């Protein structure tokens, strides 16, 4: 169990303690303020080099990480390697060795294969590896920013401070996750974060989009999606991962929408205060109706915005790793 990510890698949320997660959320809180300044930059990682290595296409995560690194004054080496290592003919080990030879402090890595970030961390033990999504495995910064967003919204409503609340707002919080759990690295990271922070998590999905061993997961599978909507404080929707073949796990997108899509009708069953989340990019009209996505309870853009301070916090804590005050 990782007690703090200071000076470590961030590969998964599976083995990260509540204290370590709260530390990231609290650190991110101080970076929110930086992002509101007219000059959105702090010298925290001045002179440090962060490589961003995306073997799989991504726009938002990549932009978010690179923005975060730049706001910390780090130099960013950006490599687009959006093809499999096999096709490219170069091994993961050689690719990382080449970049490492340029002199880097951290690598932010996305890869289509589960475990690739962990494998890379074995090749370059002196470099901090931050997993920006590996196959179906984990997407830890997404889990952190989702938890951060929930805490922020709840704290604001109460007129309280997120930092002072620690993990308290999660105790007993009722979170419903809907959709393609089986193929989702976001679900794996979200569930780890929410459960570690003390929330109750239920999942709703067609049987084929649940992991085969869902009974071993720290979640409850709901019998009725509609009833679960009435229960939930937070509804987290997942992207139907059509590019990962999940299309063949349901008879049609239309049927998925009918049975597990958050339609306007279903959204009416939600409590008025319920928070609606989606990690993006959305398939509007598939897992979420366009009109629902644009409701004020939907915090989807706020999730995107919070990606930057969370990734600043993760980069700062892993790379700088010291105990000194974050933003002077």
């Amino acid at each position, binding site marked *: 169990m990782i007690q703090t990510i200071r000076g470590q890698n961030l590969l998964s949320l599976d083995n990260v303690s509540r204290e370590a997660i709260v530390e990231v959320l609290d650190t991110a809180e101080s970076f929110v303020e930086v992002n509101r300044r007219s000059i959105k930059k702090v010298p925290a990682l001045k002179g440090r080099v962060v490589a961003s290595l995306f073997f799989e296409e991504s726009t938002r995560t990549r932009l978010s990480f690179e923005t975060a690194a730049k706001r910390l004054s780090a130099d960013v080496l950006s490599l687009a390697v959006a093809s499999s*290592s096999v096709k490219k003919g170069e091994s993961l*080990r050689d690719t990382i060795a080449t970049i490492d030879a340029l002199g880097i402090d951290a690598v932010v890595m996305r890869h289509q294969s589960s*475990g*690739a970030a962990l*494998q890379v961390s074995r090749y370059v033990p002196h470099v901090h590896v931050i997993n920006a999504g590996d196959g*179906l495995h984990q997407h830890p910064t997404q889990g952190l920013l989702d938890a951060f967003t929930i805490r922020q919204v709840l704290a604001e409503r109460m007129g309280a401070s997120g930092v002072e609340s620690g993990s308290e707002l999660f105790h007993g919080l009722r979170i419903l996750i809907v959709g393609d759990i089986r193929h989702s690295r976001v679900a*794996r990271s979200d569930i780890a974060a929410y459960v570690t922070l003390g929330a109750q998590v239920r999942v709703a999905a067609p049987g084929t989009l649940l992991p085969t061993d869902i009974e*071993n997961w720290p979640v409850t599978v709901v019998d009725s999606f509609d009833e679960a909507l009435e229960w939930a404080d937070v509804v987290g929707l997942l992207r139907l991962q059509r590019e990962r073949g999940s299309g063949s796990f349901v008879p049609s997108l239309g049927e998925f929408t009918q049975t597990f899509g958050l339609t306007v009708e279903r959204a009416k069953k939600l409590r008025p205060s319920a928070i609606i989340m989606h990690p993006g990019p959305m398939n509007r009209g598939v897992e979420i109706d366009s009109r629902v996505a644009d409701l004020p309870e939907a915090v989807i853009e706020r999730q995107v915005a919070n990606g930057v301070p969370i990734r600043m916090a993760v980069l700062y804590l892993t790379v700088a790793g010291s105990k000194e005050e974050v933003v002077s």
Partner: protein
Amino acid sequence: MSSIILRGGLVVGELSAEVGDVLIVDGRIAAVGVVADVPVKSVEVDASGCWVGPGFVDLHTHLREPGREEAETIESGAAAGALGGFTALVAMPNTEPALDSVALVSYVLDRGARTPLDIAVAGAITRGRRGEMLAPLAEMAELGVRLFTDDGMGVQDPSLMRRALTYAKPLGVRLAQHCEDELLAGGGSMNEGAVSSRLGLVGRPALAEELMVLRDIELVRLTGGAVHFLHLSTKRSLEMVVSARNEGLPVTFEVAPHHFTLDETACGQFDPLFKVHPPLRPRRDVNALREAMRSGQVDAVATDHAPHAPELKDLPFDEAPAGMLGLEHAASLTFEALGSEDASPLRFFALLSRGPARIAQLRNSDLRIRHSGHGGALAAGEDANLVVFDTETRWTARSGELHSRATNSPYDGRELVGKVRATIAKGRLVVNEGVLV
């Protein structure tokens, strides 16, 4: 005249074991028991504290030649085998090109004859192992081939498998099946279960193996053709084949050291060294395999020795090829699984030598392909294919010290008990004091 005298070991016959000497003269066992009259200039091997038995026979060795010589050659594989106590290896046909013709089988037999061991060949069941058309089984059988397999993958098409069995039956050969229904295995890279689900790796369910085992048992019942089940890895698979064998159906099976030693949690760090098909299973299956070995239900231990070049095992887990080395550690791991100091020497040699020799029809010498007899009773007059296994030595497996060309062993750093001290293959002392002569 050359002679070798093995002094003071526990000589393990088929039904009993007794301390004594074994004298080998001109490639044959000349005397067993208390041997006083030894020719001058005999090479003496101290076998005290050791088990002396028939040399090990591996039903399942990937020698990679032709096509993947950077990973292993027939020569390097034979050296690794000799150090592991093997005197005969069955070369698997999933080379590049596949061993699916007389020319290719002859090539491997010829190369094999130049090594210190007997290298038998398993031919492909289908042309190019593509699972579409039968390979020339009768022509290859003429050359002495006694096992056929598309290993790496099972014959997926049930009607083709039925036809292969019907065709093979009068040839007196056995079809060796890699049981995994690839449609059910779904391109997965480890066992389907709690670990794969947590790791986000697509799983290969136990059912993919068990359904094909079930299918092939029924095809054996229908056709009367013989099937040898390769590397069975689940409790249910074992139960089905044991029950079919008890009914009298011509079925046999092997288990592989990695399946009775390692479980699925070994994949937890995404290290492709632990990727293998069928995959490492949950601990309950590992324990069931060990239990079946101890109770005498298992016909053979076979290594599924699968060398891969290091760069391939550096790929991400889902892209890396499946398979791991086995020849040099199989005997120690079998000894461990049988209970180390409690291990039965009769079982040990049944699993590693006599059982597999029977399945591969290597008990009698075959003059056509210059193979000597293996898995013998240790009686005077037999071809000298013997191993001296030191049951007391403790050692640590080191991947850097292997004799395979490849280094993809999953056992690096593992503490082992029992080690091959000497191997006598084709009448010659090829390993002595644990090193190649």
